[in-house]
């Protein structure tokens, strides 16, 4: 059977892939996607911990459930905001939205 930290490595890898996307992608929607990846890695963590170490309670599982729910909500609001911004500046490039600075 696979030891725990292999799974953890996978999730961490996913986590940093997401972070890489967040750093490099200039399209807001793709940035959002990267955030979703990060959240998923967290979910994997929770489930794995729950499964391997603390099976007597389902704390981890529930946490990941709630994370999923919230991720959905967050994505929705984010997209709404992005669309609204798109209305104003006709672009979804983050570089385009740097009027506020210094």
């Amino acid at each position, binding site marked *: 059977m696979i030891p725990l930290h292999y799974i953890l490595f996978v999730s961490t890898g996913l986590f940093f892939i997401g972070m890489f996307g*967040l750093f490099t992608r200039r399209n807001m929607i793709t940035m959002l996607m990267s955030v979703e990846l*990060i959240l998923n890695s967290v979910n994997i963590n929770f489930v794995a911990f729950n499964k391997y170490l603390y099976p007597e309670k389902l704390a981890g599982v529930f946490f990941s459930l709630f994370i999923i729910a919230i991720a959905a*909500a967050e994505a929705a609001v984010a997209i709404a*905001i992005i669309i*609204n*911004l798109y209305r104003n500046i006709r672009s979804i490039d983050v570089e385009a939205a740097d009027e506020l600075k210094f």
Partner: protein
Amino acid sequence: MWNGIIVSLRQELMVTGILFLLLFIKVASTESRPGPILTLINVLLTVNLVLGFFPATGATLFNGMFHTDGLIVLEKNILNLGTLIVSLLAYDWLKTHRQMLEFYMLLLATLTGFFFMISAGNLLMFYLGLELSTIPLTALSGFDLEKRQSSEAAMKFIISSAFSSALLLFGISLLYGATGTLGFIEIVHHLDGSAFQLFAFILLFSGFAFKVSAVPFHLWTADVYEGSPVPVTAYLSVISKGAVFFIFVQTLYTVFKPMAGDWRRILVLISVLTMLTGNLFAIRQNNLKRLLAFSSIVQSGFILAGMSGSSRTGDASVVYFILIYIFSNLGAFGVVALISAQTGRETIDDYKGLYTHNPLLSWVMAISLFSLAGIPPTAGFFGKFFLLMAAAGRGNYVFISIAALNMVISLYYYLRVIKAIFMDKQPEPIGKLKVPLLPNIAFAICLAGILVTGLAGWVYDYIYSLSIGV
């Protein structure tokens, strides 16, 4: 058990109730006349505030997920008060705004989130409360739909907060893995201060730091504050920050007590960075909202300094300071909100010669700024004094000296505003503005708070009696 729930959750229930009431009104009424509805809402908020002050006993419900005590109730009341003031100040802006009711719904949702976050008994509840407060806030900051800056601010806010909450979650998950539990009380016993746990803690810490906009997690602050509608900015800068600070202190002082040695050092470092950076950026701002944003960053630096004292004084001083900070900052933002709502002018140059036509507003502004700068006899003086006193409890006087130096620097840009208002002249100064009743009430509350809270020593003593040390 229900009585217990109702008594302990009365503030949450009240707020949620108002939220749903507004929802019904929205759904039911075809066209809404802003005036009376605003009045009604403010009355409701006042009632809510008053209800909050009923005597409360400590309780722990839902098998440890929800926990409350005297201090927490007080903190919720403080937040209620702040929200009330904000909504009073928002009057001018909302009168004309189309989605006035939605504004309040989101606002109240946020408030509920803060309440649950403050009295969270485990990390899950904490996270839920945090998100419940964050997501509507991002929506709120984009509330000036036609304004480009507003939506840009909202975008920055949601993306960076999503990022930060993701990191926070990662930290939580690691912590869960390391301790096997989410409950605050249990976690304490499983903390061994190992490197890994420290790493998890740092991730968690960054989540807090992001929320209280501590350097280097502060970069969203200025942009969001500048872009958002002024009332939202005000709300962000006091209520959101205050609430997070409340839970921050609690978490550090109770949950992470075993790591006190570590987080004390982290706090000192972060607070120095925060004060310096905030000041350095603030001194060259011209937009008043942005200036106040950076000043609020500096204030967080001072609060962090107080926290680093990790003594009972520290705990009490933080709560006390946030109470004062609400009065001072809302006083200042109130004036800005009023002026920007009526004239749309927000830069310091616009404020030149304000005194000639609006002496009253000028004095409100001046006194609030003095309180922010910590000038006696305003309450800010006492707040800062006790924060640094708490910080000095650890005997790190280099740190204290830096903090004191920063007090001087920060005085400079507050005085710049005062100078513009009282001393400078400009061809067309802002004309005589008429201040509606509700904002006037708000100003009265703020000034009263600024002048009374400090001089009346019992306020501090009361908070002290409720607070705890490490």
